[in-house]
């Protein structure tokens, strides 16, 4: 039998696998073509095993990661017994482990000593995936087919041979085939880089010993996670969060989490959540699983590795036909942000009674704009996704929230990218991009500030919005106030109008301005308990207005 592992080998394997995913992520970041990937890092990297377990992941976008094992499960089911070295598999469809259609996932199998052992997995949000409108976010969609091309698990490479006809088919169905091909090349390149690194590890240590070490790593993470959960108060807790609307006239769509904590186990039941929407404001099964895992990851110790072991204490109950698990034909593109953010918030609110010293106030909602038009400098069409004007993070027991650090699903993981580079690449001018005073929720600890952005679009263009949080701000916790909601406006030829969170086909004339005021994070603890020095400092720094946080500008 294999000899027992020494702790140094386990440590080498654990750190090596995490450095492999980091290196894959770095390669992806540096080689991808679309702004959404290279500037804004909307991609994730993982290593899974053939039993679909998450072995290692890079800390990119938390909401992608918990979903990846479901995708591996679909790939294993689709190609049982036919996976060969040199295969590259793609998928994006939510019925087979995808989150939403723009997130395309590439898988490369990794063999060691003749046996298939791992997958390197890269999931990336593509700039466009075909469908009725550019950029996949289609507020008008009533069916998933209107959101883009659906890709079940398919082999793009068979034993190292590219199926050019398949690639051509996909590229023909998206709006920016050159970018798409570039991004796909970057994804596959990153997955192959991971494959090479793991193969080297096999050669150094032996594939069997690597697998032994991986079991030790997973079990260790489980032990740590259970130790944390054991410290929380037993009980059944309830938390609720609201979506503004579904874009079809239904307001205040409820996400309800009933969380039962017993011993070192935690079960999350979302089945009381409202029925599914007729619009893209729905979640897919894998995405909801990922959102629950994300909430759990925020509440346990940050240094516990996010792998299969860490999530073993967790079980999830969902009801098909609800907004958190929509029927297969329904659109779901909004899901990785909404209702993912509301799912996290409902769970954290519920558990704030069980572990108040760990629970943080609400991070903001996502309210995106994509703009498309012709770029006179290149003579080509452009598409720009707004990742600037980041909203504020929630305050916590430890201190004020991070200003401009984002939403629950990204928590400071999305880089908004250089304004200078954006201006050099797109016909846009950022006249203003700075903190939005007064937007952070009041509290003993203040919520982080949102951002005030004035953006001049220099050419005629079209825009869509997709998002949430113009009515409901990020939740305050334990007496803290909610952060200010988003307030976006279009100023066209002197007249200004508010933008709704789910608008399709907004016409923009050359020289129009988008005035974006993004929301602030929730406050933590009662505002009367805020230290006077902190209040004075906020005033000197013009972070609040007239001594009041939590107001509008």
């Amino acid at each position: 039998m294999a000899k027992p592992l020494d702790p140094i080998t386990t440590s080498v394997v654990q750190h090596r696998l995490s450095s492999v995913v980091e290196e894959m992520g770095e390669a992806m970041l540096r080689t991808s073509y679309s702004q959404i990937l290279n500037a804004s890092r909307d991609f994730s990297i993982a290593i899974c095993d053939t039993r679909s377990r998450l072995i290692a992941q890079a800390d990119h976008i938390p909401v992608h990661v918990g979903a990846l094992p479901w995708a591996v499960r679909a790939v294993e089911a689709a190609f049982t017994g036919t996976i060969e070295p040199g295969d590259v598999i793609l998928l994006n469809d939510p019925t087979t482990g995808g989150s939403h259609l723009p997130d395309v996932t590439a898988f490369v199998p990794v063999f060691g000593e003749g046996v298939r052992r791992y997958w390197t997995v890269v999931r990336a949000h593509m700039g466009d995936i075909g469908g009725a409108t550019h950029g996949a976010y289609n507020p008008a969609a009533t069916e998933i087919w209107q959101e883009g091309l659906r890709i079940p698990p398919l082999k793009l490479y068979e034993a190292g041979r590219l199926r050019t006809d398949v690639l051509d088919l996909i590229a023909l169905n998206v709006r920016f085939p050159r970018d798409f091909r570039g991004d796909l090349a970057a994804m596959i390149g990153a997955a192959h880089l991971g494959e090479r690194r793991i193969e080297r590890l096999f050669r150094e240590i032996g594939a069997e010993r690597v697998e032994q070490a991986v079991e030790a790593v997973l079990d260790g993470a489980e032990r740590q996670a259970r130790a944390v959960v054991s410290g929380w108060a037993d009980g059944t807790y309830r938390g609720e969060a609201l979506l503004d609307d579904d874009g079809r006239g239904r307001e205040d769509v409820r996400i309800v989490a009933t969380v039962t904590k017993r011993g070192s186990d935690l079960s999350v039941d979302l089945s009381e959540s409202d029925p599914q929407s007729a619009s893209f404001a729905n979640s897919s099964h894998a995405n909801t699983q990922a959102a629950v895992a994300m909430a759990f990851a925020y509440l346990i110790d940050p240094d516990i590795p996010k792998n299969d072991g860490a999530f073993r204490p967790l079980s999830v109950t969902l009801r098909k036909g609800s907004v958190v698990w929509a029927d297969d034909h329904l659109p779901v593109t909004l899901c990785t942000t909404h209702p993912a953010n509301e799912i996290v918030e409902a769970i954290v609110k519920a558990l704030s009674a069980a572990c108040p010293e760990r629970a943080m106030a609400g991070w903001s909602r996502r309210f995106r704009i994509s703009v498309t038009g012709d770029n006179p400098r290149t003579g080509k069409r452009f598409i720009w996704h707004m990742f600037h004007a980041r909203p504020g993070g929630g305050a916590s027991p430890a201190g004020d929230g991070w200003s401009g650090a984002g939403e629950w699903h990204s928590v400071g993981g999305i880089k908004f990218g250089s304004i200078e580079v954006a201006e050099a690449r797109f016909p846009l001018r950022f006249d203003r991009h700075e903190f939005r005073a007064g937007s952070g929720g009041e509290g003993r600890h203040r919520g982080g500030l949102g951002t005030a952005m004035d953006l001049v679009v220099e050419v005629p263009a079209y825009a869509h919005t997709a998002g949430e949080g113009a009515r409901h701000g990020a939740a305050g916790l334990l007496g803290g106030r909610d952060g200010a909601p988003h307030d976006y406006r279009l100023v066209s030829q002197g007249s200004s109008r508010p933008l709704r969170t789910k608008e399709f086909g907004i016409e923009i004339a050359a020289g129009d301005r988008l005035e974006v005021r993004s929301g602030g994070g929730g406050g933590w603890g009662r505002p009367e308990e805020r230290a006077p020095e902190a209040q004075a400092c906020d005033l000197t720094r013009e972070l609040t207005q007239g001594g009041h946080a939590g107001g509008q500008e």
Partner: protein
Amino acid sequence: MSDRYRIGIDVGGTFTDLACVDAAGALTFLKTPSTPEDQSVGVMTGLSELAERLGLDLPGLLARTARIVHGTTVATNALLERKGARTGLLTTRGHRDILEMREGLKPERYNLLLPPPEPLVPRDLRRAVPERIGHDGAVVTDLEEAALDAEILRLKEAGVEAVAVCYLHSYRNAAHERRTAERLAALMPEAYVSLSSNVLPQIKEYERVSTAVVNAYVGPAVRRYLESLARRLAAIRFEGSLFIILSQGGVAPLAEAARLAAATVLSGPAGGVAGSRRVAALKGAPDLIPFDMGGTSTDVSLLEGGSIALSADRGLAGERIALRSLDIISVGAGGGSIARLDAAGILQVGPQSAGARPGPVCYGQGGQSPTVTDANLILGYLDAEHFLGGRRRLDAEACAAAMDALAARLSTTRDEAAAGIYRLINLKMADGIRLMTLRRGVDPRRFALLSFGGAAGLHAVEVAREMEMERVLVPAMASVLSAWGMLNGDLRYEVARSHLGDLASLDPAALALIFAPLEEEATARLAVWFDGAIRVERVAEMRYGEQIFEIEVSLDGLDLAARDAVKELEARFHRRHEELYTYASPGQEVVLVNARVVAVGAVEPPQLASSPAAPSPAKPGPVAPLRSRRAFFGTWREVPVYAFASLPSGMVLPGPAIIEAETTTVVIGDGDTLTVHAFGWLDIRVRCNA
């Protein structure tokens, strides 16, 4: 003159190290306490002591000295301890928060309880100026001088000592930044001014603003210090050249270091890397983990195949510094780290350090809290009578009393408390090595640990054992390797410019036109400080059109006059891309982003053959120990103590043993084996459990 000296001076948190080489290669070195209030005091004391060793007086030594190379921690400390200048920032109106936004990124993704850091320039000192340059360099909004003047006066009123200026697209058109500098000179002539277009003329505003701000924040302290040092040296008629070693490993004259103060944050460690490289070459051991443990901090780097990476991704103390620098990790712990009980009553070592003043309890300078050094004295690894060659008597009684007090609170014995501190600091040091190796997927076990810095010898073997590294090297000048290494640093002057454009649209003449002025500038600047032959390195930073990160492509050996020069450069880019990322996309357009030129003035490394520790090869037999003393290796043992300089090459010695030199002590444990190599260097085979 046969005695043209070269002197390397490395100021650390606790000691100032000096290494002096004469024309024949004879090496003299010493340590003297640092003087943190004004580091130049310790430097001058060290020079006087050095003169005495050489049988000279200070003016006599300096008259015979051709070059002094100096590593300073003034910038490092200012940043780490947050004791830099009160700094203001002038920035484009509407863009007041670039610095604090940090591009939307927060570290530690899953730690939502991490509070946001305080920016180096608080928001009330970040002042927006009406002006705007477009992406093409055209002026969109003129600089409003009245408003600029008002903001400058506001900063002046707020007691600001240094001002960073960073306007959007100033890498393309620096006119507004330059005009702002003129107004600052008129209204705040005493202020240290740091223009982003001067410090880092490259696209990407966060990197530029952060680097310019760090530069301003540390600039006044660095400038003040260097001026004070220059004055002191000039007063005794030093007429040789004085250089500062920079984070990128090259050396530069004072004025340049004062201008680019942010480039000195890794000044001392850069000397250590230069020394390690030289050791790797002399020893034929290209895979080394340099482990430099001093009193206040410990630096770890990684030499693979004898070389170390340059990185533009670095920062210090959470601040982004986008200047290129050597890849070095610094751990905030060392011999001076203080042992204490935390809130839970658990023994912790560091992060507080006793520094040079008051220093460890045993220094008898008023230190009350036991430190790692005190633990080493209790355990018998250090000798109260022979510290610094007997020049500093250690106060063993005060040390024992302080350790007893700690032990009482831990309900344990003095020895156990000291042994606990020793074990904890070793684990902390091992963590630093983990960060540099395992965290990057490198197995440390195939490397040798290169032990240097005053405190490293006491811990290196145990740290290596923790990491299962089987080999530790200790060169004879280990305690002053950084200072000695500085004598090996080449002179480097680097200039870069953003030139965003399709490579295909360039012909070789246009390409040459981009590089020619940079080469001219770099060589002209270097020629002012250096009269030898200058070598030029040219690098193009390139990417595919839609990517936003560049990769470096060397132009070495590329004839820019050749007709196919652009084609060849493009081919090199595709090849490099494939090497790094497994694929290339020939046919996609390639963009040139930055052109970078480094002028290098090579320095001939000092010889080592006649090092004072060099053995006489005639008598390779064993030597007798100096003495023996009781030291703690799990139990108290009577252990032989050898003089480092007396060990002949070829001698083999089993542990436990203690090797003493004037400036360092090396502890070798039970089951370890020491072999003495050429130059009298120690090569220790470490017993590992696996």
